[in-house]
C-alpha cells in the first residue's frame, strides 16, 4: 500500500492541559523507518496518543493517509484473555466493518500464516497467548500489527521485553517491510542498540523542541 505521506503533523501542539513543547511540524514518507527518541517524560507517548486520536491536539493538525496499526504495552484484559497465538494475530485483520464477518477468508488465513512465519511464531501458534513470556507476547503483537497491509506502523517500546536476538530479528523484519512494502514505521525506543542499522530517520525530543531528519545527521548533532 503506497501513499504520498503516511503521516503529517502540522503546527501540532500536544499535551494534557498545556502544550508540552513548541509546535511540531513533521512529515513522513513511505519507506522511512523513524526512531523517536528522548528522555523519560518528554512527551513521546503523548505525541503518539495525539497522532492516534486518543488525545485531542491542543492546536494544529494530524493527517494520516492510509491504514495504520499501533503496538503499545499490552493491556490487562488482552494479556489474560483465552486465545491462542493464532487468534491474537487474527485480531489485527479487524478494521472497518470486518468484525461483522463470522469467518476469515482464505486470503486472510494466508496472511495470518505468513505473519506467524515472519515473526518465528509458527511453532507456538496453538499455545495460549496468556502463557507466553513478555518478549514472545511482543512478537505476537508485531505479527498482529503487520498481518494486513498498512501504510503506517507506530511502535511504543514494542521490543522492550524481547531477548536481544529476537529484538534485532524483529527490527530486521520490520525493515524488510519498510523496503519491500513501502511501510512507514515510527518507533519510540530508549535503546537504539538493536535497530540502529535499520532506522533511516530520527525525531529527537530536545530541551528546546525537536530535531528531525536523516539518522546520521541527527545523531551527530545530539552527540
Amino acid at each position, binding site marked *: 500500500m503506497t501513499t504520498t505521506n503516511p503521516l503529517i503533523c502540522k503546527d501540532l501542539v500536544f499535551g494534557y492541559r498545556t502544550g508540552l513543547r513548541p509546535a511540531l511540524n513533521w512529515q513522513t514518507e513511505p519507506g522511512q523507518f523513524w526512531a523517536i527518541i528522548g528522555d523519560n517524560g518528554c512527551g513521546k507517548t503523548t505525541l503518539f496518543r495525539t497522532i*492516534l*486520536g*486518543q488525545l485531542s491536539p491542543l492546536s494544529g493538525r494530524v493527517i494520516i493517509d492510509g*491504514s*495504520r*496499526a*499501533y*503496538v*503499545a504495552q499490552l*493491556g490487562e*484484559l*488482552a494479556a*489474560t*484473555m*483465552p*486465545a*491462542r497465538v493464532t*487468534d491474537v494475530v*487474527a*485480531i*489485527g485483520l*479487524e*478494521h*472497518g*466493518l*470486518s*468484525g*461483522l*464477518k*463470522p469467518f476469515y477468508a482464505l486470503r486472510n488465513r494466508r496472511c495470518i500464516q505468513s505473519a506467524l512465519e515472519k515473526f518465528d511464531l509458527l511453532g507456538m501458534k*496453538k499455545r*495460549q497467548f496468556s502463557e507466553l513470556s513478555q518478549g514472545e507476547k511482543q512478537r505476537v503483537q508485531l505479527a*498482529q*500489527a503487520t498481518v494486513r497491509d498498512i501504510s503506517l506502523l*507506530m511502535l511504543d517500546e514494542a521490543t522492550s521485553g524481547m531477548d536481544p536476538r529476537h529484538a534485532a530479528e524483529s527490527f530486521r523484519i520490520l525493515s524488510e517491510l519498510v523496503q519491500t512494502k513501502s511501510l512507514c514505521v515510527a518507533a519510540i525506543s530508549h535503546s537504539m542498540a538493536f535497530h540502529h542499522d535499520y532506522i533511516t530517520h530520527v525525531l529527537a525530543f530536545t530541551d528546546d523542541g525537536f530535531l528531525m531528519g536523516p539518522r546520521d545527521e541527527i545523531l551527530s548533532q545530539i552527540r
Partner: protein
Amino acid sequence: MEKIELFFENWEFFREAALSGAISGALLGALGIYILLGRIVFLSAALAQTSSVGVALAIWLTALLGFSHENTPFLLDPVIFSMIFTIGILALISKGLRHTKSPDAALAALYLCGAAGTILIGTQIIHEIQDIQQLLTGNAVLVEHSDFMLLIIISILILGLFGYAHRGFEASTFWPDNSRVAGFPVTAFNLIKYAAIAIAIAITTRMMGALPVFALTCLPAMAVRKAPNLRTMFYLAMIVGSFVGFAGYVIAFAADFPVGPTQAITALICVLLSLTISGIIGLIQKLRSKIRPESIAS
C-alpha cells in the same frame, strides 16, 4: 426419582418455566464471558438489582394508576418497563463510569440502591409482595407465555448477533486501542454489547430473580475458563448455562428447594467440577513431562 418422574409427567405445566431457565441460562452464560473476562462482574450484579427495581416500580405504578392485571398498558408491563428502566439507568451512568477512577464504588451504590429500592417499593404493594420476594430470592415457578415468547425472540437475536459478529466483540472488548487505531468501530460495538447485557439481564430478572441472574452471568463462564479461545468459550458457556438453568429447576422441584438458589448452587458445582477436572489434567500433564521429558520437549 419419583419426584423427577412426576415433573416430567406434568411437563405441560412446567414446560415454559423450565425452558425459560434453560434459555436464560444459555443467554446469560454466553454474555457472561464478556462480563467475566471484561471484569464488569459487579456491573451485572448492579444491573440485576436495577431491573428488580424496574419490575417493582412497574407493579407499583400499575396499582397506583388503577390498572388491573388484564388491562395493564404495554409500557407498564413489568418486563418492558424493567428493560427500559435498566437501559435508561445504564445510559445515565455510563459516562460517569467511564470517567470515574473508582467505578466499583459507583456500582456498589447502584447495587445497594437497587436492593433497598426493591424492598421499599415492595412494602407499598402488599398484595404483590410475593412477586417482590421472588425477584429478590429468585424463585420463578411460573412464567407468563408472553414473557416466554419475548425471551425466545430476544435470545435468538442477541445470541445470533454475538455468534455472528464475535470477531467484532472480541476486538472491541480486549483490544480496544489497537482496534480503534485500525479504524474499527469500537464504540458502536461496546454500545451494542452493553445494551444487549442490560436487555438480557432485565428480561431474565423478571422471570428468575436477581440472584440466579447474577449467578448465570458469572459462573458458567467461570466453569469454561480453560477453553482454548473466546469462540469456544462462548458456545461452551452457552451449553453450561443452559444445563444449569434447566437442571437447577428440576432439582429444585425434586428436592423442594427454591429455584433461584438451586440454580446458583448448580452453577457453582459446575465451576468446582471444572476446576477439579482441569486440576487433574494439569497433574497428569506434569506427571507425563516427568516421565518422558524428551518427548514433551520435542
